[in-house]
């Protein structure tokens, strides 16, 4: 049972802290001969599989490395365009590694702001009076928990769906935030959090939560 990541979003919807605790890497490396039976396409500065799912390589997986060398966006490490490289039979047999693309910092920023808006829409479309925004979002592989403080800061935790004790963890993260970020005289409000003690204590709290422990009154 794991906690995947933690995001902290400020009042305006901007991401001020992000920590990836556990990122499962589902990667598949295979050797291919010409012609390639997977259909690849450009998407968001990456090359992804658009058709031809097989053997663990799913639609949406990105090209991570060619012949053992990590790719850089849409081109190989030498600067050649990947799709052009793969159209040339001279380059075969080629070994390509596919997997879920890692989120870049920009993408994380955009997703955090997107969630900030979705949180508000969840409250607006409520059929009941006095509803908060989205506090928990469930999918089949993860559960997203969100705690919004009275000052508008959102603490977002992505965890395994069966993980318990996330509500206590969110309150604990709020405590750590107020102790190690807010009380830090060099930290400016609503700005990205760059406080070592905050990082350390957050990691400690995640370990305790994963072991399904309870946070002691004074810890």
């Amino acid at each position, binding site marked *: 049972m794991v906690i995947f990541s933690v995001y902290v979003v400020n009042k305006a919807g901007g991401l001020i802290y992000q920590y990836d605790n*556990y990122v*499962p890497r589902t990667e598949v490396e295979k050797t291919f001969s010409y012609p390639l039976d997977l259909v690849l396409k450009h998407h968001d500065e990456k090359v992804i599989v658009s058709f031809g799912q097989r053997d663990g390589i799913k639609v949406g997986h990105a090209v991570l490395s060619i012949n053992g060398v990590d790719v850089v966006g849409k081109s190989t490490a030498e600067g050649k365009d990947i799709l052009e490289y793969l159209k040339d039979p001279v380059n075969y047999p080629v070994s390509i590694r596919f997997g879920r693309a890692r*989120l870049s910092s920009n993408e994380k920023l955009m997703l955090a702001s997107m969630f900030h808006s*979705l949180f508000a829409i969840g409250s607006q479309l409520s059929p009941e009076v006095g509803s908060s925004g989205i506090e928990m979002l469930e*999918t*089949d592989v993860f559960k997203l928990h969100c705690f919004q403080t009275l000052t508008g800061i959102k603490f977002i935790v992505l965890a395994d769906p069966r993980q318990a004790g996330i509500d206590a963890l969110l309150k604990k993260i709020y405590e750590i935030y107020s102790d190690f970020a807010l009380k830090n005289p060099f930290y400016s409000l609503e700005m990205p959090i760059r406080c070592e003690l905050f990082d350390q204590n957050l990691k400690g709290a995640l370990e305790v939560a994963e072991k399904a422990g309870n946070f002691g009154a004074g810890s």
Partner: protein
Amino acid sequence: MTVHNFYLFDRNGNCLFYNEWNRKKQAGISKEEEFKLMYGMLFSIRSFVSKMAPLDMKDGFLSFQTSKYRLHYYETPSGLKLVLNTDLSVSNARETLQHIYSNLYVELVVKNPSCSSTQTLDSELFSSRLDSFIRSLPFYSPRAA
């Protein structure tokens, strides 16, 4: 224990059907705008979830909850989206939504040659059967919790 409302969207975002049972607060915007906002929110949540997911997903987004209600979502492979808002006591309405799709929508609407699948649903039969189905659910009570 109660069901608040139900939306049915086609794959282009048109709201084919909407009904409410125990809704206490309107959204403050016209029904048309509300449908667009609801569809837009669901579309964004799906895209958000597919990017954020640490592993490959099979069913995708299932539900979300706030302090007062829970929204259950079911999407068919043909792009039809069923949305049910209930109170917090209902933890999983996926089977309910699947039942509404296969036993009510497919039987009464898809198999009906006079029901056009792109416009708002006109079927009285669908509407009344859905209403009695929802009222018969174990988690439905006319007096809202």
